């Protein structure tokens, strides 16, 4: 029973579309049902749907081209596991213990609850990685160039939502890490000129992160951001369907598209398969692979949960403070912030840097007037992006490195090397204060020249004479210049073996070895 077709006088390509009606689709009962209810044909959308479904795709594509599909899968993973988590999560920060923390803690006590939470955790981390890779790939292919500007822009909205979801989700367990990471991340808002402080108050509902912040973030995490995300995904994907994928289009023989608007599989160039079902089958395979990785990660490495949030940050029975650390994908920014010294540099970093990056991302399709999609025609764009990517990776690595604990020494090394044995100790135990920017005492500890130069209190090392070196005095609490001071301040002293190693190095002449 075929539906009477509407005469489509307004369709300029009416002739083409009648010519290529796909008999198989036409006969499918699903198509008939959907077409009649949604009025796809009436609305003139039938060619679009057919074109998308029958579009020729290369049989083998670069796996990176599937990042968008993988992201889609990851997002679905987040939705499913997130809905499940909501049934066991109590997002309140009133009372003791806080229900938000307690309910999260309870999840870790049951295998399946913990598993779902771990899937959500790893899915979130995977999404951050996949978004980065997807963006890099899109940039490399020049897939933001006309007419795909809106694809790029909607992608930026999706990027913003992903970061927002990561940030807001991070707070929900309400443990120390969650609380203080959110405190620091949201505090950046106060750098917005004029209205920053009010904006921050609005975002948190309090001066400092409090129960209202949790409620607000929960609402953002489960309602506002997913809603924006879903709507934007719709636009993003529709645009991909309309404009096609850059590298698929580029590889098709010239003029093929015009000739075979709604191509039949039999007309395809060699090595090409239709989008449905072949390419979709590939997507499913990639999704399955990612799912397996997620399951393995979730089953082996549980999502972290620290002690309950402590606003004053002094656990009663413990004398050591909690030291807030950023989540791994913000280690880069963290490392950069540590290098700022004083108000101006600080504003440049916290306010200037994100604004410049944001502006470049938004304006990219309009700045980059080079029409070519080929890598070798775009030396400037790719070099700049390459330097940027290197910077991100390097600062992330440096941030990570700066937080690694020094290797445990059982006994002083007789003839230590500066780079192999001393630097790890300095980086782990001294660098938090005496690091890239000369913070405390104008002393720069992570370079050989800095150690030798000393700081505000004079030379720190007298080669050959550990017993007259200020460095050793301060480590052993024996300094006359600074009586009673023992480095590292506010932390456990270095072990005898560590101090001995440093002393032996000085005895050997404090060489840059």
């Amino acid at each position: 029973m075929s539906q009477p077709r509407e005469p489509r006088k307004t369709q300029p390509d009416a002739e083409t579309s009648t010519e290529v009606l796909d008999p198989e689709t036409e006969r499918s009962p699903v198509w008939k049902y959907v077409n009649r209810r949604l009025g796809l044909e009436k609305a003139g959308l039938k060619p679009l749907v057919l074109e998308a479904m029958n579009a020729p795709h290369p049989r083998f594509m670069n796996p990176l081209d599937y990042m968008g599909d993988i992201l889609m899968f990851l997002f679905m993973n987040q939705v499913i596991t997130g809905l499940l988590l909501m049934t066991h999560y109590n997002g309140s920060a009133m009372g003791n213990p806080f229900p938000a923390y307690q309910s999260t803690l309870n999840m870790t006590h049951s295998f399946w609850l913990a598993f779902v939470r771990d899937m959500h955790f790893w899915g979130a981390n995977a999404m951050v990685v996949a978004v980065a890779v997807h963006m890099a790939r899109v940039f490399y292919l020049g897939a933001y160039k006309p007419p795909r500007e809106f694809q790029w822009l909607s992608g930026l909205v999706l990027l913003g939502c992903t970061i927002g979801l990561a940030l807001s989700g991070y707070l929900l367990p309400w443990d120390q890490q969650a609380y203080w990471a959110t405190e620091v991340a949201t505090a950046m808002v106060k750098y917005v000129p004029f209205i920053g402080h009010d904006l921050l108050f609005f975002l948190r509902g309090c001066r400092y992160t409090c129960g209202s912040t949790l409620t607000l973030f929960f609402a953002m995490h489960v309602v506002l951001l997913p809603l924006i995300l879903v709507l934007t995904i719709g636009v993003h994907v529709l645009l991909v369907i309309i404009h096609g994928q850059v590298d698929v289009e580029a590889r098709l023989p010239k003029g093929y598209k015009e000739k075979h608007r709604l191509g039949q599989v039999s007309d395809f160039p060699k090595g090409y398969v239709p989008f449905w079902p072949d390419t979709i089958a590939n997507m499913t395979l990639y999704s399955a692979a990612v799912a397996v990785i997620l399951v393995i990660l979730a089953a082996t490495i549980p999502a972290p949960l620290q002690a309950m949030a402590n606003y004053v940050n002094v656990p009663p029975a413990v004398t050591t403070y909690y030291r807030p650390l950023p989540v791994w994908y913000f280690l880069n920014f963290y490392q950069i912030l540590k290098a700022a010294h004083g108000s101006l540099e600080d504003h440049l970093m916290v306010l200037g840097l994100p604004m410049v990056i944001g502006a470049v991302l938004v304006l990219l399709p309009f700045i980059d007037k080079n029409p070519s999609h080929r890598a070798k025609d775009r030396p400037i764009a790719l070099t700049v992006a390459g330097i940027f990517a290197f910077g991100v990776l390097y600062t992330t690595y440096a941030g990570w490195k700066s937080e690694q604990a020094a290797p445990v020494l059982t006994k002083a090394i007789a003839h230590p090397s500066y780079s192999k044995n001393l630097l790890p100790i300095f980086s782990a135990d001294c660098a938090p204060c005496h690091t890239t920017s000369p913070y405390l005492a104008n002393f720069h500890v992570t370079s050989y020249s800095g150690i030798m130069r000393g700081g505000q209190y004079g030379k720190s090392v007298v080669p050959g004479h550990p017993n007259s070196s200020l460095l050793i005095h301060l480590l052993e609490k024996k300094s006359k210049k600074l009586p009673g001071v023992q480095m590292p301040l506010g932390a456990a002293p270095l072990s005898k073996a560590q101090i001995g190693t440093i002393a032996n190095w000085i005895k050997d002449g404090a060489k840059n070895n």
Partner: protein
Amino acid sequence: MVGLVPESGRRGFIKGVMGAVGSLIALGYAFVAERFMLPPPESAAALQKVGKSSDFPTNTAKLVVYTGDGGFPDGVYIVRLAKGLAAYDEHCAHLQCPVQWSQATLTFNCPCHGSVYNVYGKNVGGPAPHPLNYHRIVEHSGEVYVGGIVAWGTPEWTKMAQAMGAVGKFVPGRTPGTVRWSSKV
């Protein structure tokens, strides 16, 4: 009305009224929103007893917990300076990590990005863009009371800073009694 004014004039009138009423409604909501969002003056929050005068000797900073009107606990450092007690909010002026008192150097050090504040709460190192926020503090017949936050940049903050002598250039490494300040702000 109908018939008295030409049709086009009547339309214009209706449009004008519509615009005026619509704007009025929008303005009303904007006004209410502005009043609602405006945070109450925090420094006016109730005073709370945090200890005895003898709990706060010179040359040291002590962390006490102050629970503001919102019922939310906040860490406050209390320091006895030459000119009396001072109370600093524990949140770093950079990105609001809790600063830690270091007795050896008489500084507040931030564990996050390495900001350093002297005993007057003034930023002397690291990325911190300004000094610490204060809290109101009152010493009365041997008891110490802490009040609401006095944010940096407000006139009240400046007054407090001047009162405690926390203005000028800091020479680090000295005890509070012997800190030398240049007279310039």
